[in-house]
């Protein structure tokens, strides 16, 4: 439905950040369907939660 054009003038701060964007990840994501992108996100969420749980339970090595 995007009916009208939004003009986004380049912002120097954002342009600086843009240099570090990994475009290979974007290109891979753009090959997926929207549902696949959201399913990937949920898998990543699950993994992040598992890492956080493991981090909380981690004991310092003696």
């Amino acid at each position: 439905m995007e009916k009208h054009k939004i003009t986004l003038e380049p912002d120097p701060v954002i342009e600086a950040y843009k240099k570090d964007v990994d475009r290979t990840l974007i290109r891979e994501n753009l090959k997926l369907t929207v549902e696949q992108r959201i399913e990937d996100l949920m898998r990543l969420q699950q993994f992040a939660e598992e890492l956080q749980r493991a981090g909380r339970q981690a004991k310092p090595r003696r």
Partner: protein
Amino acid sequence: MTNFPELIRLFSSSGVEFIIIGGMAATAHGSARLTKDLDLVYRRTPENIARLVAALAPYSPYLRGAPPGLPFRWDETTIQRGLNFTLVTSLGALDLLGEVTGGGSYDDLLIDVVRLQLFGVECLCLGLERLIYVKRAAGRPKDFEAIAELEAILEERQRG
């Protein structure tokens, strides 16, 4: 973990008028960044608020980060009196926004949405350009990386 498919199906099947924004909208457009909550702009008509309240009531909505035991009531009066709600529910973290900076209300945003067929239902998602515009308008330093990625997505799309 936020159950994005269930939340979207729940609101769609209940006739709630909403627009997906924020990190989930970014994911839909191709972002590889992790987001943990679902941000929705809901239409603030009495009918839609009634549908929203009825749909979410079985999932124990409560103010996210608030101490337990506050006299928070999930009802139409609460939604009418407030505007934006950051909630935790049994389906995960959910932000319900009556308005967004740089975007306005549901009706203001309608001109810049895309229709998505998602998990068996049709729903509205904020268009990429408007999503960038809204994130820029929020002016939060924590969003700079996300905005940069969204603008890179826009460039990649335009390159075809």
